[in-house]
């Protein structure tokens, strides 16, 4: 309920802002909605959203899988951590733009270069978060698994990953929003389609309506993923926690 009120307030502020700034600088909510509907009717919107979404999902999956594995290893094995730590610092502080431009220069304006650039941008934050989780693993449960000779894979699945779950969720949450922002830049700079490409065109035409239309449509997509995919997974993963009745 409070969320709806807050959302309504945002729309009202938007209306007022649009009134003072003028349609050209900040089009009114209805104008943007109409633009969304027009784009949707032509099918253009869904195509561009779909293309961007696929890039987001592939890059996100890649970064999360590799990042979690490296993070777990660095959190568990001191030697790996010492070897990898300075690389990690470099990667963390390399601006997204530099990685993207280098990826395109070295790999050409290709899909692979684009997705790798996004994944590499997300990778270090995933590593850092999961590494913290791996450091917080309970040694008592490790010993238990060892005494009872639990096979490695079963230990990973039933003892390690459940303990990492909050860290994986945090990395996933921040990752999804980071990845989609970077995908847009990658598309703007070197892809012939996607939301980023559309926004690039709109920028050249000074078409604020179009920019807002695509941006909002994609925010809705991310929100849908959050409520329909991320939250149910979290609920299932934490069902063992005591609920305050």
């Amino acid at each position, binding site marked *: 309920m409070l969320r709806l009120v807050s959302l309504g307030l945002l729309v009202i502020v938007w209306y007022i802002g649009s009134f003072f700034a003028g349609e050209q600088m900040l089009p009114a909510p209805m104008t943007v909605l109409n633009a969304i509907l027009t784009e949707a009717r032509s099918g253009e919107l869904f195509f561009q959203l779909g293309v961007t979404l696929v890039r987001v999902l592939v890059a996100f999956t890649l970064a999360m899988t590799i990042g979690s594995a490296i993070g777990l290893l660095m959190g568990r094995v001191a030697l790996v951590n010492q070897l990898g730590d300075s690389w990690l610092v470099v990667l963390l502080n390399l601006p997204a733009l530099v990685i993207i431009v280098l990826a395109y220069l070295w790999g050409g304006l290709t899909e692979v270069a684009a997705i790798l650039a996004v994944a590499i941008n997300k990778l270090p934050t995933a590593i850092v978060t999961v590494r913290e989780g791996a450091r917080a693993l309970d040694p*008592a*449960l490790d*010993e*238990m698994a*060892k*005494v*009872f*000779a*639990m096979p490695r894979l*079963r230990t990973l699945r*039933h*003892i390690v990953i*459940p303990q990492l779950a909050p860290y994986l969720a945090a990395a996933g949450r921040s990752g999804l929003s980071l990845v989609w922002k970077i995908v847009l830049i990658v598309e703007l700079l070197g892809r012939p389609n996607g939301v980023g490409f559309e926004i690039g065109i709109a920028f050249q035409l000074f078409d604020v309506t179009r920019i807002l239309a695509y941006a909002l449509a994609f925010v809705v997509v991310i929100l849908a993923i959050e409520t329909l995919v991320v939250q149910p997974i979290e609920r299932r*993963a934490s069902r*063992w*926690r*005591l609920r305050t009745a």
Partner: protein
Amino acid sequence: MNDARRAGGSELLDVRIVRKAYAAATGQPLEVLRDIAFTLARGELGVLVGPSGCGKTTMLRIIAGIDVDYDGKVVAPERGRLAMVFQEPRLLPWRTVEDNVRLVAPSVSESALVTLFDVLELTQHRLHYPGELSLGLARRVAVARAFAVGPELLLLDEPFVSLDDALASKLRDELSVLVESRAVTTLLVTHDLDEAVRLADRLFLLSARPAQVLAEVPIRVPRGRRTATELSVAKAEVVGHLRGPLDPAIKA
């Protein structure tokens, strides 16, 4: 490697620890165990009694193979053939009682599980999560888990500490039933002399740190048939071995 993990002869467990020391925070080595030597035959229930902090848990960890940094030699069943009940239950909070047991003992039969849960009065808690259990119940799950793997050697690290007397005594009886019915070789660690004389076939009396075996006291009357007098005789015998600085931490 200083531990050859093979069982041979009639002795299932042969412990010879020359020395075990930790590096303390000050940098000085802290000696925990010195010249420990004892054996347990198949099916025997041995109890290590000693004051709190004397290194009993360290000894169990060495026997369990978790700690390999010591001088000496331990012959014990290899991993997978031994089970341990830790001082804390160490259950997985995100798995139900039943899953906690099945995870370490995937091949346990349904009927074995039913019996086990029945003896330990866990039947109605099978689908509960550890967070929903009291400490006493969680301890029972840990005991059930240890028995479910059908171990040759069972290690128990003060499994009934911090439970009230009535409950501890009940769990002791349940444990005794389980050990009896399976003829599993058991090594139990405790600082409670009452508990020791009630359960032990053989009792090893440990000194304060660095722990040494002060005396070995066999108790020949079968566990189930020990009367109050026999228990106090056994206790008196143990206390008789405690010459020199009697450690007040041992409840006599």
